[in-house]
């Protein structure tokens, strides 16, 4: 086992956790990076492009994911969760549960032969927002790191009934291991970085937007996958009802946020910009598409953002309407009808497709994780900063540091910066330990 004085535990392998891990590892620190999903990359890996430069998201993230996985000082533990943390700053003992993947990470080369042969098809592909299906053995996504298959134990015929075994037969690397068990591990670490990210709020919980009722109402995350060339429609924008290309599109902001009734009175900080980006990209996919963004306040308030919005209005012809908006039904053709106000008068307009900027909320797992880590959450279940002004990186427990959206709404560069900052604080803890041990 690694010595505590040279190790740090990072929880969450999104962009914030990756950055924290890389900074520490580059200083010679051993990092245990724990990720609950089968691949690192987090939400950023799912996005199509990034604002305000329209860089391809996975293209800029993938090298960092590869650096992280290949770094001699970083141990990446996918399918893993922290189940306990004892000790104190400089000397923690962390318990981690690694769930069985049923595929040996050291043997699987990600060739994909098993994926084509598995007879259990048609399972919802959550990573693709259930817009397409996968089989019982699958790859988290095309650029997954590690590029290792995973068996879904709830649907694998062999694991359920002891029959089938096709994947094992076709795997020339003998990587399939049906007998794999969950493993409990223990790490001695001097500090902990929490970087567990966020969940996308489910708008079926609100009746105002017709999501789940009218097929041509989408969430922004669904739409990110739709416009992605590697996504379920290979980048073709299509309506759910009839597969037709839309000509008019509406984007509704603040869905579930800035609204005390949903429990999220706050602003998620990124939706104004991602809708601006998405409407801009729609125009790049479909010549002549007409997009309208309904917003409360256009929060284009970081580097290059205001200019980006202005460019969207000027060069892409996207219309911005300052109003709350709801979806109040659909036409016979399946066009959602959007209701909004202009100059005090109420209007209704049909669109071919509606995209909801569903808010980003603290991960469901935060409550449980906070308990296990012995740290406090704020009233909305974000991880609580010790002092937002003076010590925004420190959690309520000494030696446990925060990075990224788990500590409050922020965009990618802020998450990256905070990942670095959390690495700095963890490094300080390591240095202190060496001095005072």
């Amino acid at each position, binding site marked *: 086992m690694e010595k505590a004085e040279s190790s740090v535990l990072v929880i969450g392998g999104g962009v914030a956790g990756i950055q924290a891990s890389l*900074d520490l590892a*580059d*200083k*010679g620190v051993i990092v245990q990076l724990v990720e609950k999903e089968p691949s690192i990359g987090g939400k950023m890996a799912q996005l199509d492009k*990034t604002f*305000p*430069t329209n860089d391809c998201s996975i293209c*800029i*993230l993938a*090298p*960092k994911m*590869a650096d992280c996985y*290949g770094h001699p000082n970083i141990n990446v533990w996918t399918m893993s969760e922290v189940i306990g943390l004892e000790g104190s700053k400089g000397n923690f003992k962390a318990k981690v549960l690694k769930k069985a993947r049923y595929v040996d990470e050291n*043997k699987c*080369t990600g*060739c*994909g032969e098993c994926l084509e042969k598995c007879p259990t098809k048609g399972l919802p592909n959550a990573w693709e927002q259930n817009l397409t299906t996968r089989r019982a053995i699958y790859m988290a996504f095309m650029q997954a790191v590690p590029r290792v298959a995973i068996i879904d134990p709830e649907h694998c015929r062999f694991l359920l009934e002891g029959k089938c075994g096709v994947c094992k037969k076709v795997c*020339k*690397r003998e990587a399939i291991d049906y007998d794999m068990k969950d493993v409990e591990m223990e790490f001695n670490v001097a500090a902990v970085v929490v970087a567990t990210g966020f969940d996308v709020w489910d708008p079926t919980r609100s009746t105002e937007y017709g999501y789940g009722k009218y097929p041509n109402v989408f969430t922004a995350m669904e739409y990110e996958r739709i416009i992605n060339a590697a996504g379920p429609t290979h980048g073709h924008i299509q309506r759910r009802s009839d597969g037709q290309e839309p000509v008019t599109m509406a984007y509704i902001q603040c869905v579930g946020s*800035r609204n005390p009734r949903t429990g999220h009175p706050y*602003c998620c900080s990124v939706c104004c910009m991602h809708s601006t980006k998405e409407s801009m990209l729609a125009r790049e996919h479909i010549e002549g598409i007409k997009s309208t963004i309904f*917003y*409360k*306040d*256009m*929060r284009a*308030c*970081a*580097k*290059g*953002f*205001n*200019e980006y919005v*202005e460019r969207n209005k000027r060069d892409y012809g996207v219309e911005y309407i*300052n*109003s*709350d908006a709801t979806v109040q039904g659909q036409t016979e053709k399946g066009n959602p009808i959007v209701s909004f*106000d202009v*100059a*005090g008068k*109420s209007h209704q307009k049909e669109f071919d497709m509606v995209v909801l900027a569903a808010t980003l909320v603290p991960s469901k797992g935060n409550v449980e994780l906070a308990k296990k880590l012995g740290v406090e959450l*704020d009233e909305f279940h974000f991880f609580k900063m010790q002092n*937002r*002004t*003076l010590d925004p*990186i420190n959690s309520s427990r000494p030696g446990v540091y925060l990075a990224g959206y788990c500590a*409050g*709404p922020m965009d*990618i*560069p*802020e998450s990256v910066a905070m*990942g*670095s*900052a959390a690495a*700095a604080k963890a*490094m*300080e803890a390591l*240095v*202190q330990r060496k*001095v005072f041990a």
Partner: protein
Amino acid sequence: MSDEEKRIGVFICHCGSNIAGFIDVPAVTEYVKTLPDVVFATRNLYTCADDGLTSIKESIKEHKLNRVVVAACTPRTHAPLFQGTCQEAGLNKYLFTFVNIRDQCSWVHMKEKEKATEKAKDLLRMGVARARLLQAQDEVKVGVTSAAVVIGGGVAGMSAALSIADQGFPVRLVEKESELGGFVRNLSSVYQEREDAGALLKTIIDRVRSNPNIEVLLNSEVISADGFVGNYDIIIDTKGQERNDKVGVIVLATGTREYIPKGLYGYGQSPNIVTLTEFEKLVKERKLPKLSSVAFIQCVGSRGQDKSYCSRICCNVSLKNAMNLAENYKNMRGLEGTGAVVEAAAPKETPSEGGERRHGRRGRRGGAEESEEGGASEGPKLEIVIFNRDIMAYGVDHELMYNKAREKKVRLVRYTPKNIPKVSVDSGKLVIDYWHDTLQMQRRMTPDLIVLATPVTSQADAKEISMMLKVPLGQDGFFLEAHVKLRPVDFATDGIYVCGTCKGPADIPEAVSQGIAAASRASIPLARGFVQPEALSAFVDSEVCSGCGNCIEVCPFTAIRKNEHGKAEVTIAACKGCGNCGATCPENAIFMNNYSDEQLLAEAKAALQEAKG
């Protein structure tokens, strides 16, 4: 090296079916065997798997290979692995080359297998031609001066200095003013908790002052910096006295200043028209005049009025002050406990607003909807209006403050750039005429004080510093980071980092976060103790060099300078091998290690040959 017998080994990967499914790998392997100097060629199901790597190592020994070519997925992810394998077998890693036959061949030609096979042969012929001319390179390890300089002693710079110091490295904190604190010294309070800004600064300054690793240099500026990552020679000027110093890394945190709204909204025509920072000073110094009506105007000189950007923080600063006025006006004037009476003010707005009401369920305009009438709920009536375009109350704390301000009857009136509020001064009295969009009518108010929320802007010396350190400024005049998404506190030049408001508008917590982030990045070379750049750098043939200096201009990494003989000289540790200089040199005096003209031309010639067999 050129006389040595070339013995090239080629390893072609099936990548399961990723390559072999579309390319006839056995045929390609047989073809490769016919190429000059290829003494060994084989194929593996997975070259990157253990058996593949073992086969490379064994073949290097068995066949005395002195060049290795792997044809497989992509060098982006796998080149380091194979280079390491060569090195383990005693072969210099620069004698390895990668041929991309998956991402750039089998995957893009899935529907034309025969052509894909032909293309793979072409690519391999090119790779082998290149491999024949590869030369072994030595990587130089350069030591690092284990110290940092932080330029700027505001909250970002102090946070950076503290973290670098607490990671065990000495820091010079250079501040050009006579005290630490930067822009925050202007402020009365910090908005989240409405904490006293002076007290907050004192806490940070005390931490800095008591840290044994931090040397604070006031009234000082860095006037020269020469060198590269790990090894900078700097000169610090303190009131005319120069000090030579050596540091390994430089953190830039030079902060910001307020935009002065000359000619906008009557600024300068009345002492009661002030900027947001001037207002903060009035509050801080307890010089606030007696007020019954205050107007804040947002986006003065920003978002296209002069500067193109949004200054991010001003909405929240105005909200904080508006709320402070609504709740705490007496105290702000220093009247608390003095027995002074603040007079109630009659609403000054015309026409009367009796008929005004909010629209729709929970206000369809949602955001900056004008809230219902009335002054502060208790005590003296104080009318507070914020004219805004959008309220940038992003995140949790700002939005909650925004909601609270609305509860406190702070009125929010939205305007558009086409219809901005008009300020006039009529024999000392202030008048604002504005269009009320929801009511669709022209209105007037007569406040006692108008506060103009102007943006923060880059420092006067930003350009000078940018030229001294050769780091770029963006169009907005702020320092430009290496990558806006993924390298927010790095510059493209290794060894120099950036944080806080010199990079763009940021509030205090953001500046603190960025400061600590920059500290993390800056202390990487310090913690490693050395820098070891890849040996793919540029070299200047000083006999051919005419000293024109074109290469110095195009080098994005400040890696070239003129030596004492007037010739260009490359600092290998700073060079990233991008090749800009080589392409620019009119004398062909610059060549790139392992990307020489000879090597590139050999590859190009090979590409133009017909594949036989």
